[in-house]
């Protein structure tokens, strides 16, 4: 700004100065010349008069620094000169002014010196005796005049430059100051110059646009945050140099961190070589899937490379918890293995005994025992298959009719069913509590109570007690079956509801049962949206409490 103003000031000043100089020196020069010429002419005529009267004596009396007088005879020989020795001077007949004077009475010429800085003017006049008197004067040419004023001119230029610097500074400051004081946050409220109002209105428009874009960006970022922070899966975004860009809360949880710094290396989050190798593979192939175990949980890790313009721009890492899936897969595998094993055992004995019978190898007195065993095993098989069918029905979530059921009569009914079994072990069964109605599926509810009571009797000791208690709270209908039997060690609590799971493998064989009872109970309770809880101390007893919402 300052520079520009300075340049334009200088651009005006210099030509003006130059033009002034040229015009003034031109005018002055021509005026000087005129005056000088007039002076010369009057001097010459004076001298001519003098010479006419007194001859060369007059001339020798004249001593002037300004003029040089030369007296030339009509043939060109120099008779007298005020400055030089006559003998040194050559013939002047060829000089232009002399020639003119001889011819016409007066002559005039001017010659430049070798350096051009001086000009010599000559005037000649023919006297009455035929001789010629010449006057000459040296005078500075325009050029030397200019050379003479060079110094003051340069000084003036210098002053002009300095002044223009100062003025340019002042002006630019004055122009810029209101511009600097513009309130760009609210451009329309300024009144600096009319000239910049289009700029201000444009800034105003852009302000609006920017704030709108900011808003939409912020909203998008918020949306992204909302979505990713509520995701079950861990999501990590990396740039092409494996620098963290975004880590959602689930991922932070997985890597046991509270926060992350955007711009940190991925290594600060996790430095296991599984993930490092996976990232390297994703960089090469564009995609990689791997598995990771952290804090006894299993995760599937999907890494995808994001390309933009055929260059890797970053990576997306998705971590999904597959612990449940893996354990479900494991229990399915175990279930299949268990089912085939459980089905095979009774069949094996049926085949064995029936083979003996069909070969006629059985002694007649053994036949009743054999057939009884075959009958027992076949019944066991059927009850096992029944249990499996029921379980698979519950698994499938088949819709079943529900009705209002009174729990007290149901429990009484089940006690009657189990009374013979109880009396075998001399176990006493008691019911306490109020009669409560619950909406549920009759067969499933009786299944729950039957299995719980059956277990309470089965895993009891001689002369033990089983107590059924029924009550209700504001939200739930509850019943509990407790015994003072052998109890269940703590480490089995989490697994006894699994299919075919048995606390004591050898014991269950003698006590019978399919190993599916509690599994059915669990599913039946789940069908009623209820909860089941277990309290058990080994050698003291077990209490199973079921609560079903009203």
């Amino acid at each position, binding site marked *: 700004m300052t520079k520009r103003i300075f340049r334009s000031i200088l651009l005006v000043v210099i030509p003006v100065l130059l033009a002034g100089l040229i015009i003034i020196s031109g005018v002055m020069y021509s005026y000087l010349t005129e005056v000088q010429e007039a002076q010369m002419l009057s001097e010459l005529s004076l001298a001519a008069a003098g010479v006419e009267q007194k001859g060369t004596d007059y001339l020798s009396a004249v001593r002037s620094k300004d003029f040089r007088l030369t007296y030339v005879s009509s043939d060109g020989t120099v008779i007298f000169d005020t400055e030089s020795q006559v003998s040194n001077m050559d013939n002047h007949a060829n000089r232009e002014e002399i020639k003119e004077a001889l011819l016409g009475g007066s002559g005039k010429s001017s010659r430049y010196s070798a350096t051009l800085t001086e000009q010599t003017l000559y005037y000649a006049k023919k006297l009455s005796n035929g001789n010629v008197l010449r006057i000459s004067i040296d005078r500075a040419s325009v050029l030397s005049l200019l050379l003479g004023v060079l110094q003051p001119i340069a000084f003036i230029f210098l002053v002009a430059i300095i002044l223009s610097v100062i003025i340019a500074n002042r002006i630019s400051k004055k122009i810029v100051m209101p511009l600097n004081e513009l309130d760009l946050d609210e451009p329309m409220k300024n009144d600096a110059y009319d000239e910049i109002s289009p700029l201000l209105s444009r800034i105003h428009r852009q302000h609006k646009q920017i704030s709108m874009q900011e808003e939409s960006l912020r909203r998008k970022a918020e949306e992204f945050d909302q979505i990713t922070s509520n995701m079950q899966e861990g999501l990590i975004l990396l740039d092409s140099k494996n620098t963290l860009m975004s880590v959602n809360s689930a991922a932070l949880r997985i890597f046991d961190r509270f926060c992350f710094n955007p711009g940190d*290396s991925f*290594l*600060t989050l996790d*430095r*296991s*070589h599984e993930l*490092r190798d996976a990232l390297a593979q994703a960089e090469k192939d564009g995609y990689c899937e791997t598995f990771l175990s952290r804090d006894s949980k299993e995760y599937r890790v999907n890494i995808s490379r994001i390309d933009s313009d055929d260059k890797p721009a970053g990576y997306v890492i998705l971590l999904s918890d597959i612990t449940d899936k893996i354990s479900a897969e494991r229990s399915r595998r175990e279930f299949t293995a268990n089912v085939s094993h459980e089905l095979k055992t009774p069949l094996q004995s049926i085949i064995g005994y029936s083979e003996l019978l069909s070969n006629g190898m059985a002694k007649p007195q053994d036949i009743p025992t054999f057939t009884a065993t075959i009958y027992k095993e076949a019944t066991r098989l059927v009850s096992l298959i029944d249990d499996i069918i029921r379980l698979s029905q519950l698994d499938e979530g088949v819709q079943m009719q529900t009705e209002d059921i009174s729990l007290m009569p149901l429990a009484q009914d089940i006690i009657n069913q189990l009374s013979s079994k109880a009396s075998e072990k001399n176990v006493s069964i008691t019911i306490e509590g109020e009669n409560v109605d619950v909406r549920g599926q009759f067969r499933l509810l009786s299944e729950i109570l039957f299995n719980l009571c059956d277990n309470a009797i089965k895993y009891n000791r001689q002369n033990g007690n089983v107590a059924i208690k029924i009550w209700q709270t504001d939200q739930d209908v509850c019943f509990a079956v407790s015994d003072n039997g052998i109890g269940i060690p703590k480490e089995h609590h989490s697994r006894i509801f699994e299919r075919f799971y048995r606390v004591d493998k050898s014991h269950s064989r003698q006590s019978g049962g399919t190993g599916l009872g509690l599994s059915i109970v669990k599913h039946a309770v789940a069908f009623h949206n209820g909860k089941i809880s277990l309290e058990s101390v080994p050698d003291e007893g077990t209490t199973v409490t079921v609560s079903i919402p009203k």
Partner: protein
Amino acid sequence: MRSRFDEQLDNLFKDLIMMGSLCEEAIALAAKALSKNDSKLAAKVHPIDEEIDRMEKEIESNCLKLLLQQQPVARDLRQISAALKMITDMERIGDQAEDIAEIVSFIPKDKKNDSLLIEQMAKAAIKMVTDSVDAYVRRDPMLAQSVIDSDDTVDHYFDQVKSSLISLITENPDDGEYALDILMIAKYLERIGDHAVNIAEWVLFSITGIHKTTEEHSV
């Protein structure tokens, strides 16, 4: 100029994390080989140790180059000098993990390690190494301090292992060689704990500028 220096520092940081994670891997593998008495697993420790040695040389030369070319001051200087000290300790951890693996490969197959003590000690040592590297990664002085404090746990385990081995030898003198092997392993684990403490101290130094030794001198 500065940004290039920052990038170099960043790379140094990453390299140290990698080296730390290799140490964790080596000692975890050695401990697993010990608890399963598996010489195949033990053999896998050797290549990791070689990699650790290679990284030590690389990081060392990088650090020297940085010191020479960038002439760092203040925090950067601390970071680099701490790195130079830390890699020495990490390299020792790698060596000791390999030593453990070597001893494991000589333990006869039928000798099943029945004492849980040495496994717990290995676990404690691994945790110290992991925590010291974590403290460096997160620049967490509290975690570094907790590593320094937990050295006593590993030392305590060492005493316990020693006394249990003494009773093993008195009960069953034939197991003397096995007992000595286990004692050596316990000693190595104890040393690994000490190195983890050293690393943690240097982490503290790189964060706070105060190293334990200088503190002691000044007091």
